[in-house]
């Protein structure tokens, strides 16, 4: 009996030791490790170094690690919608929503050793919101509500608004809003186009045009212990085959934009457990614009019919295997705070599961609008393989199933914007990518006065709903307004036709830790939390 008890005791001790050693090993695996150089591929290249004046991720991916923001999106939040402080230690919002006061961290240094103060934040935001003549600021329209930016003391920044705007805080977390040094801006507002000087986790080392960008660890970074990496090297590579080869040949750890399903499968098959895959709905979308000044697309019955013809759920299953789209969605990325609940989504025209009923309704609407069977129109698509071409083929197939005769014209990628802007189309593929999932940002282009309203719809109801939701302080009230706007845009008026949400796929070397995928390929590129395991 005593012998048996000893045996049990020994077993328990052994088990505990085994478990604890395993747990320790697991903990060691998850504990950030310092050292190493992150090698990543960038499919585009920065035209200039000034994020305030640029629109491509080719600027964000290699250069963001050199800068800090006032507020950033939580690097571990998969929805990419939760603001946290970066240079701001804390903030308060006045009850009327008109004053945002930020307390800055003290002791934050620029890479030249000078201290960062509220003067720098104010100068950066003045450049973004109130650019001087000849200074380009591509997102100043997003801050129309801001009346003035103040720096009452060295560590306080205050934004005074003309009217409350619910998206302001998240908008301030924009990955484009790098904080520059006021003295350098005072000398030359264009200095940052060709130079780098920030307070970020990495210091600039070199940029070889067309080849690579190198950064090294900032030893004076305000967040002690970070960054974990000794440095990073971004390699510019436009060919996706080369990008895949670079990761497969372990010449690169990661590419932060995204790969196609086939490329993911190729990498996982070749590298097995050496590769980890993160996936997320992507805040990018192809939608169909119909020119409202060209018949019969001035008739909402025709536009609705075109949307009703689409079997989005079947397409989601089939197209997600071959290209980078997946979720059936409304005007916000699934899984984010203002996304459409599935039950409500199904109520929109073309989103119901009974495709036969949808198509019967589509045919009825076409007849009612006087559109003859076999009516012919031209659909213009952009000459980009993924996902434009597969989506284009799918759309044409679906429209043919309601008796429409669609001719496809593929426009070379570089000439595409020009074609849309000229309004030289009947029906065309359009697209947008957001840097943060936020109704204000994602829906701005659908108001009547927008420069990007290529279909030229005029809809006062949408304009009013947009303004109301933008100023709604209560999130629940705002959700209702976004749903109303969505119904108007995609169903009642069907000004545009949503296809499928893009799907972001990041297969990366399993050694890369501390990086979380978000719906935006503009987010989470400061690299301060990223580390490489053994």
């Amino acid at each position, binding site marked *: 009996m005593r012998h048996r008890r000893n045996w049990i005791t020994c077993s328990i001790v052994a088990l505990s030791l085994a478990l604890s050693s395993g747990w320790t090993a697991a903990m060691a695996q998850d504990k950030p490790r310092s050292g190493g150089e992150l090698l990543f591929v960038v499919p585009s290249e*920065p*035209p*200039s170094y000034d994020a305030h004046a*640029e*629109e*491509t*991720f080719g600027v964000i991916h290699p250069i963001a690690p050199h800068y800090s923001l006032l507020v950033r999106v939580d690097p571990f939040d998969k929805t990419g919608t939760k603001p946290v402080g970066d240079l701001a230690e804390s903030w308060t919002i006045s009850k009327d929503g008109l004053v945002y006061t930020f307390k800055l961290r003290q002791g934050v240094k620029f890479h030249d050793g000078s201290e960062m103060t509220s003067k720098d934040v104010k100068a950066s935001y003045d450049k973004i919101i109130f650019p001087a003549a*000849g200074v*380009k600021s*591509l997102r100043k*329209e997003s801050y129309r509500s801001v009346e003035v930016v103040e720096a009452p003391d060295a560590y306080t920044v205050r934004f005074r608004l003309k009217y409350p705007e619910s998206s302001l805080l998240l908008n301030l977390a924009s990955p484009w809003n790098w904080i520059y040094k006021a003295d350098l801006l005072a000398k030359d507002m264009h200095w940052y*186009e*060709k130079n780098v000087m920030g307070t970020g986790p990495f210091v600039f080392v070199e940029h*070889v*045009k*067309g*080849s*690579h960008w190198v950064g090294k660890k900032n030893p004076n970074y305000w967040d002690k212990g970070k960054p974990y990496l000794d440095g990073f*090297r971004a*390699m*510019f*590579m*436009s*060919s996706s*085959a*080369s990008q895949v*080869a*670079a990761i*497969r*040949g*372990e*010449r*690169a750890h990661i590419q932060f934009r995204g790969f196609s399903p086939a490329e993911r499968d190729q990498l996982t098959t*070749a590298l097995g457990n050496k590769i980890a895959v993160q996936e997320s709905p992507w805040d*990018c979308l192809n939608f169909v614009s119909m020119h409202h000044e060209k018949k019969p697309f001035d008739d909402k019955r025709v536009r609705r019919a075109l949307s009703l013809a689409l079997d989005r759920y079947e397409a989601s299953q089939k197209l997600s295997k071959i290209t980078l789209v997946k979720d059936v969605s409304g005007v916000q990325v699934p899984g984010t705070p203002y996304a459409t609940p599935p039950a409500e989504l199904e109520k929109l025209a073309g989103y119901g599961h009974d495709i036969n009923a949808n198509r019967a309704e589509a045919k009825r609407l076409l007849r009612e609008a006087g559109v003859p069977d076999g009516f012919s129109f031209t659909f213009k698509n952009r000459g980009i393989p993924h996902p434009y071409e597969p989506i284009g083929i799918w759309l044409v197939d679906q429209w043919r199933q309601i008796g429409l005769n669609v001719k496809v014209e593929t426009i*070379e*990628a*570089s*000439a595409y*914007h*020009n*074609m849309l*802007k000229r309004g030289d189309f009947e029906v065309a593929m*359009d*697209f*947008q*990518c*957001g*840097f943060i999932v936020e109704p204000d940002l994602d829906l701005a*282009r659908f108001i009547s006065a*927008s*420069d*990007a309203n290529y279909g030229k719809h005029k809809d006062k109801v949408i304009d009013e709903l947009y303004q109301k939701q933008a100023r709604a302080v209560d999130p629940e009230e705002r959700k209702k307004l976004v749903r109303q706007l969505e119904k108007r845009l995609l169903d009642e008026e069907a000004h545009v036709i949503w296809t499928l949400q893009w799907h972001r796929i990041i297969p990366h070397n399993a050694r890369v830790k501390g990086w979380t995928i978000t719906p935006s390929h503009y987010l989470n590129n400061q690299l301060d939390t990223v580390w490489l395991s053994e």
Partner: protein
Amino acid sequence: MWKYLLKRFLLMFPTLIGVAVVTFFLIRVIPGDVVELRLAGDRGAASDAAIKMERERFGLDQPLWKQFGTWIVGVARLDFGTSMWTGSPIWDEIKLRFALSLQVAVMATIVAVVLAVPLGVLAALRQDTWVDYAVRIFSIAGLAVPSFWLGIVFILTFLIVFKWLPPMVYTPFWVNPWQNMLQLIWPALAVGYRYSAVATRMTRSAMLEVLREDYVRTARAKGLAQRLILVRHALKNAMLPVLTVIALEFAFLIGGLVVTEQVFNLNGIGLLFVQAVAHRDYTLIQALVMLVAGIFIFVNFAMDVMYAWIDPRIRFR
């Protein structure tokens, strides 16, 4: 001789001016706009005000004749302006890429000459024997296989068999010769093989023709050694068409390796060309066309000089 050279030299300028005029106006016919492309970015939207401001900055709001005048005056002073995409001086955009493309072209030429001349001569000397057939198969295969395809085969073999990939970032030869060669030897071999195939066939046929000439028969009748006949009488005379092929291929390699550069991720002139066209970067496209045209014209001039040196009949004609 000097009159001949001066005439050839002066003929270069009308050609360059013609290229400048055609390039300037032709690229403006292509739809698309650098400003819209750059400002629209991924989001697909750009405000009209921002587009107007940028067009004014680049002078794209000016009449075409005025834009051309400004540019051609700059070209005459060897100032090609700044890239409309990056805002950097054109020469900054080109110099690193030019160094890489030039090195690949030189290495591929060495590969081609080292293979083509001995093989071509051997095939001619052993006409219709198994040696000749082997050389012909080798050269026809080289002509049939595109160099980018051979490059892909190299890359896949490295990846699948050796689990290795050549370096993907260019290191200049003077910084690290080993890294440099490790990256550039493979494209040089891929391109050099096709290049050598062209030159091998040309060497073989030129040699066959020359070996049947009376002066070669006379040399043999005089009892000259075979090696002497080959080097002094046959090869020197057979080299004229071979040199032409080698020179023109060399000039082509500077800007024409678009796909091969993509396959090996080489930051060369070919890839820059494609990017410039995709971005509608007018100033950069114009400068690159002028550069490549200049190289072709210079190579042609150098060949004219070489002809005159090799064949005295040309300089006295």
